[in-house]
């Protein structure tokens, strides 16, 4: 239908359509424009250039609705471009980066239809120009809309596959299929699609592409010759390294043979010279195979020698014997000389051996002469920018081989060097921070030798040689060399030092390095140590080695004096289990203010049973382990004393609004209270009754489960729904405590968001049951006596006596038993004469019902109370065979989900509130990511295996070891378990053990644990690679232990045959502990 001519401008007529996202209306406007109006319309489009922000439109509705309308508006601008402009100009004004089909279907449909209906002569240049758009950064074709749209247009008009970067950046968008192979099989754009994609240089992120292409060739979807030709062509065009890697791997996967390479060796030499190291690595063997002339070998060797990578040099060296047979030994010798002309002592040694074997003579290398670097004063940068604040731990980051957060920037590195030079110029440089960092990182196997070499190179060249050399050689290199496990790249540091050795006055190597150099063997690090020692001594290497080996052995080292680490203790604050909870005496008038506290249900890790990390201390909230139950008891007592009406009247004053506390929360916030307080709120609102407790327990779902189900149904029915709409849907459809009777009986009750877990639901039910019984029974049995949530028998007995003969909440009683501390069995007699009629059912496993709660108490006490929790790990999940004397499963009102899942897990205080004496139940899986806090290491009872396996902060370890609560046996079991499942990071473990050794008050307990772990790991079939470091650490601190005990397993390991590094270290340890 033609759009009415209102006489207004094009922009005025389009704007209302943009504001509501009326794509169809916009299409009609554009389609039925009069020829005289088109110029105005075109000018409008060219002026606004597809930029919606310039129009300052006011969208209405919810955030999601505005978002969706906005996307429709972008499609309208896209339609304007293709309806009004010539093809190339239109391609530039379609706002591709802002177009996404996720939020809009109609816009894309109309747009595509318009392109389908357009003249192919217009469409072809549009497609080509669009595919070649420069879309970078934020504007890149990340969403793939451009590709998806162009693809269907190209197929419709039978156009060639677009070759532009914009199209190929998301080349498979819109193509049916899950995998690359599926997408390319029977694809009408093949083979051009894959050829163009390879040429685009974007293939680097598709690591599986070589395999995929090999598969497509194997199944006949791709012509091998075509791909090979394309790849060999593209290898000459200097694509990005990642793409070159993919191209080179394609040649490998397709089994490229040297004879197939057009241009043969000349082509390969070009690619080897200009290509990335990995590509060169793939192609070098082909080049070696094609060498037939001496000059070709020389050229290849020159090329390989000029590359920074070591691997190609080694490959060529290994091939030189055979190559010498092929082209003559003279060329082979020359090639070996070229490869061997390096600072790498090991490579030079290999080359020299080869030269000798080929009959050549090794040319004497002229001795380097000093250039005066030793006497150069530190060059302090002038016009220096402000150096950032110095942090002693900077060297820890700089020298870390795998630093967190990407390490330091170049500017920060330069700052560290500048600061070192300044310290040197002021005569304050000691190198102590560097040495401390190296010591720490060495223990963690995180030492970045190359970073150390880089730092000292900068310092030496800038005039810091005289002061820095002793630190680099006598301290750091010597430290790295000490012990049996050296950093694998230590040779690199020694090689770097050797390049400066000619500048340094003659001297000898420090003891460990000397010992290393003198030892039998020709490892890389030994060769570098000898080269360095020889250079420092001014001798040829062979002469130096002979001199070194003729020296008498070094005297044995003296046992160091203990620092008293073992005896050092630090007083720790009392555990929550040592702090008695104050009994609440809340008058009715004070109840509302008390219940108006911060009982936020999301503050679940804010308890004294946790050790907060340093700097992560949270504000205190009232959602802790004890206070809600105390207030429940006070409320129940008030109901009984003052009656429900007066109490409800008083509780009507409860304020659930938390005032503004910080910039983060500038407005008052509505608190969603935790389970027990929610029960009080609902009781106050008269929304609790006995009948709906059963629905909550057995016919309910958590809100998140209900929402998940609705999402699933929406997806299955392809219904488009926004988050806000989903929230509305949940609110509209969920049966609640309030409306449940109006809803169908088949629908489960959807629990409010405050009850986010089944243990929380259990606490809610328990509180609700007590509240509903309050008029008859003023006593709540379960409120804890101690800060760790546990209850004394004396307190329970007093409460039972007060409630004698009164109808009692079953859940309250069972909860009280689960909180009960150990008590003497003989006290069972004190229960005689008491009776607690149960309000809801309890059934023993044999089906016998219990009517009097005293029977449950008697059973509990007679069995000796709650047994220790035994935990078992099955595929990383914890479970237990341990049964309580009065299991929760007997309670009729136990939520069904808890009955079905033997180890139902939830995070935070909810579970600890239910079973405070089994804190290990909070850990469900050995390796799950936990919340930001830590395990409840200060909870009741000694921490078990599950907690030991999940401690994740140094603060927690410090707390445990200072209290001697770290269990060496459990630490050993966990270490062995992790080792067997290949999740043990012994390097990291050794690092934090060292920190604990050095933390006041932690040594003794940590020593026992570390020794136990080392001992247990030493008898494993596969010895962990980091055991050497752990044993070395123990050796280092053995003298601190006053009466050391040698574990039998460790003694057996040390005594067994073998000379592995671990065994040698174990022998040293056993010897040290036996002194």
């Amino acid at each position: 239908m033609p759009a009415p001519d209102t006489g207004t401008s094009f922009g005025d007529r389009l704007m209302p359509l943009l504001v509501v996202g009326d794509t169809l209306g916009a299409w009609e406007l554009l389609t039925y424009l009069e020829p005289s109006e088109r110029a105005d319309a075109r000018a409008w489009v060219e002026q606004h250039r597809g930029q919606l922000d310039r129009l300052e439109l006011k969208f209405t509705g919810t955030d999601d609705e505005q978002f969706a309308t906005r996307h429709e508006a972008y499609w309208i601008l896209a339609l304007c471009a293709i309806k009004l402009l010539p093809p190339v100009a239109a391609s530039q004004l379609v706002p591709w980066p802002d177009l996404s089909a996720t939020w809009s279907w109609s816009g894309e449909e109309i747009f595509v239809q318009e392109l389908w209906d357009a003249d192919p002569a217009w469409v072809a240049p549009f497609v080509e120009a669009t595919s070649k758009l420069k879309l970078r950064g934020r504007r890149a074709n990340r969403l793939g809309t451009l590709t998806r749209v162009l693809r269907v247009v190209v197929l419709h008009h039978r156009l060639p596959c677009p070759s532009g970067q914009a199209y190929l950046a998301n080349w498979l968008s819109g193509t049916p299929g899950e995998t690359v192979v599926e997408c390319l099989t029977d694809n009408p754009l093949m083979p051009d699609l894959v050829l163009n994609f390879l040429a685009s240089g974007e293939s680097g992120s598709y690591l599986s592409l070589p395999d995929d292409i090999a598969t497509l060739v194997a199944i006949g979807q791709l012509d091998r010759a075509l791909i090979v030709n394309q790849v060999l062509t593209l290898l000459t065009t200097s694509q990005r390294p990642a793409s070159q890697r993919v191209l080179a791997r394609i040649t490998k996967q397709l089994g490229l043979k040297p004879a197939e390479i057009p241009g043969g060796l000349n082509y390969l030499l070009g690619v080897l010279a200009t290509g990335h190291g990995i590509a060169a690595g793939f192609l070098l063997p082909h080049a070696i195979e094609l060498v037939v002339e001496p000059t070709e070998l020389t050229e290849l060797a020159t090329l390989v020698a000029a590359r920074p990578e070591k691997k190609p040099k080694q490959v060529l060296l290994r091939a030189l014997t055979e190559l010498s047979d092929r082209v003559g030994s003279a060329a082979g010798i020359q090639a070996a000389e070229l490869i061997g002309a390096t600072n790498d002592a090991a490579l030079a040694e290999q080359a020299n051996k080869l030269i000798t074997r080929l009959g050549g003579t090794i040319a004497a290398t002229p001795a380097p002469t000093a250039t005066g670097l030793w006497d150069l004063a530190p060059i302090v940068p002038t016009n220096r920018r402000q150096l950032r604040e110095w942090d002693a731990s900077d060297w820890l980051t700089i020298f870390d081989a795998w630093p967190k957060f990407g390490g330091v920037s170049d500017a920060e590195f330069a700052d560290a060097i500048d600061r070192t030079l300044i310290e040197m110029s002021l005569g304050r440089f000691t190198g102590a921070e560097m040495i401390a960092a190296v010591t720490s990182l060495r223990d963690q196997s995180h030492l970045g030798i190359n970073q150390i070499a880089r730092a000292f190179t900068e310092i030496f060249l800038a005039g810091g040689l005289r002061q820095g050399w002793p630190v680099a050689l006598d301290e750091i290199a010597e430290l790295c060399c000490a012990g049996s496990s050296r950093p694998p790249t230590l040779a690199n540091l020694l090689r770097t030092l050797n390049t400066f050795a000619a500048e340094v006055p003659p001297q000898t190597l420090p003891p460990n390095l000397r010992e290393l150099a003198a030892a039998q063997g020709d490892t890389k690090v030994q060769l570098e140590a000898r080269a360095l020692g020889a250079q420092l001594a001014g001798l040829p290497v062979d002469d130096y080695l002979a001199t070194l080996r003729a020296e008498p052995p070094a005297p044995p080292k003296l046992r160091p004096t203990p620092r008293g680490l073992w005896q050092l203790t630090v007083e720790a604050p009392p555990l929550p289990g040592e702090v008695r909870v104050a009994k609440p005496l809340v008058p009715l008038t004070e109840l509302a203010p008390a219940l108006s506290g911060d009982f936020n249900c999301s503050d679940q890790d804010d308890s004294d049973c946790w050790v907060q990390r340093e700097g992560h201390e949270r504000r205190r909230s009232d959602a802790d382990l004890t206070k809600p139950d105390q207030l429940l008891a006070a409320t129940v007592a008030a109901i009984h004393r003052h009656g429900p009406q007066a109490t409800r009247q008083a509780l009507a004053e409860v304020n659930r609004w938390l005032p503004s506390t910080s910039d983060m929360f500038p407005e008052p916030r509505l608190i969603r209270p935790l389970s027990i307080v929610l029960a009080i709120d609902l009781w106050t609102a008269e929304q609790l009754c006995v009948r709906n407790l059963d629905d909550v327990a057995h016919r309910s779902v958590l809100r998140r489960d209900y929402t998940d189900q609705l999402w699933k149904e929406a997806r299955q029915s392809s219904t488009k729904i926004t988050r806000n709409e989903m929230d509305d849907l949940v609110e509209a459809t969920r049966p609640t405590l309030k409306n449940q009777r109006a809803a169908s009986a088949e629908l489960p009750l959807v629990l409010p968001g405050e009850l986010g877990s089944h243990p929380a639901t259990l606490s809610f039910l328990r509180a609700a049951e007590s509240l509903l019984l309050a008029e008859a029974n003023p006593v709540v049995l379960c409120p804890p006596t101690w800060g760790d949530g546990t209850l004394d028998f004396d307190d329970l007995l007093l409460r039972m006596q007060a409630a004698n003969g009164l109808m009692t909440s079953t859940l309250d009683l069972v909860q009280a038993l689960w909180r009960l501390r150990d008590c003497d069995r003989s006290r069972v007699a004190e229960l005689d004469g008491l009776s607690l009629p149960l309000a809801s059912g309890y059934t023993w496993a044999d089906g016998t019902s219990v009517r009097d709660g005293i029977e449950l108490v008697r059973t509990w006490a007679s069995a000796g109370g709650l047994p220790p929790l035994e935990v078992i790990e099955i595929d990383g999940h914890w479970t237990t065979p341990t049964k309580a004397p009065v299991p929760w499963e007997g309670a009729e009102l136990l939520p069904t989900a808890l009955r079905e899942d033997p180890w139902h897990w939830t995070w935070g205080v909810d579970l600890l509130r239910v079973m405070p004496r089994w804190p290990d139940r909070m850990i469900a899986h050995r390796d799950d990511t936990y919340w930001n806090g830590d395990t409840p290491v200060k909870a009741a009872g000694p921490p078990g295996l599950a907690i030991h396996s999940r401690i994740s902060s140094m603060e927690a370890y410090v707390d445990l070891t200072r209290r001697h609560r770290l269990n060496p046996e459990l630490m050993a079991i966990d270490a062995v378990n992790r080792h067997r499942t290949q999740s043990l990071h012994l390097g990291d473990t050794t690092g934090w053990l060292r920190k604990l050794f050095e933390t006041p008050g932690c040594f003794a307990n940590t020593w026992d644990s570390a020794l136990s772990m080392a001992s247990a790991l030493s008898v494993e079939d596969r010895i962990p690679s980091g055991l050497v470091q752990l044993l070395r650490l123990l050796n280092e601190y053995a003298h601190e232990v006053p009466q050391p005990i040698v574990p039998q397993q460790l003694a057996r390991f040390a005594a067994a045959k073998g000379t592995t590094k671990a065994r040698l270290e174990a022998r040293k340890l056993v010897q040290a502990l036996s002194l």
Partner: protein
Amino acid sequence: MSTYLRESVLTNETDGIHLALATATGLAPGGLVVESPLFFSGLVAKPQITGPGILAVADVAASRYADLGVAAKLASIDPVVTAGGDRLRFESFSACNGVYARLDLLPAALGEAEVGFGTTNVDINLPLRTALARVNQADPLHLSVGTSELRVSSPSQTFVERKVKLPERWIRGLAEVPGLCAEMDQVCSLSGAEIAILLARLPRTQPPGDNLFLKRLGRTWHLSHRNLPGAIPLPGSARLRGSDRIARLATKLTIHQHQFGATAWVFHLDGAQFTLALSPNPFRGFSGEGTLLTLLARSDAERTGREILGLLGWSPTVDATELANESGLDRATVRGGLAWLAASGRLGYDLVDGAWFHRELPIDAEKVLSRNPRLTAARRLVTAAKVHSSADGWLVNGDHGNYRVGLDNTCTCPWVAEHGGSRGPCKHLLAVAISLRDPIGEV
């Protein structure tokens, strides 16, 4: 804007490989503009150098080491070739204009065939690059630069005529780099395995790479990020990879350094030499270095330049003394004239010979001169009588303030404060220089 009437091709014939480089409109002796001029045709003596060498120049032209906005808009540009009677010189710049590459094919490489005179662009297309990369070195190579055949476009021809235009940045660079090279000092000479040792030390990072300083201790090259005494600057270290393709063929490498950080790396090949010049800042190309401005400010420079231009004759090496003798001018005047010619893009500089060489870019040379905006601005200041002498120097009324030019060639303007002398004299200094030599009215 000039046109290729055909495309460059490489064909395998029974007598060897034929590399036919198509030329665009060029300049030849006499200043004549020639369509597809023929500068060389013959069997080259060093095919193993010729192919990789031309590819290396093309590599640089096709590379972008620093992602400058303007560079992104530039397509791969074809090299410029100059035939100097006995040698061929292929020149190019990277798309970012920060790297200059030149291959000099010397008589020993070109063999017996005659070399013409002139300058033009040569077409290096992608298929040709691929074909060149696959040439067998053992085969004889017939090289032709241009053609003598008369070709007329016809509808049956598949080749679509391609336009080529020397970008503005190239023109400025071609005028600037020779001046910089002429002021460089050789700081290092390496041969044999020493070249490989140095190149192996350089990290293969993403372009443009770190700004490094190379310090040699014995056989070892150390890399530092700080300017150390005696160290060779290598700004944008990855840019040196423009030499990758020919480094293995080098018998000698000489490194030349300009006082303000530009460096030139000359790879001596068998019968050829490959020069790679790197700008002092990888994110700023060769343009506006202002090295020749002081000389250009001399009013007699243009007169002299025009006078001696006719004596150059596309000479592969320009001897200033000989020119002075021929022209009857003194050496200082000749130097000024040569500077003017270099700034107009009519001279290149050969670091090995230590001499200028004549080349004429196929563009309007007069426009090149007008592309020195600083000089133009300086002349405007003088014309507008903005230069006044004072007791301790001069006072120049600039556009944004009054600046003092001292007797020691210093200026108080912010431009000098920012760049020091690294980009030549400022317009105020130039204005003073012009006013001293050319009273108002004669400029």
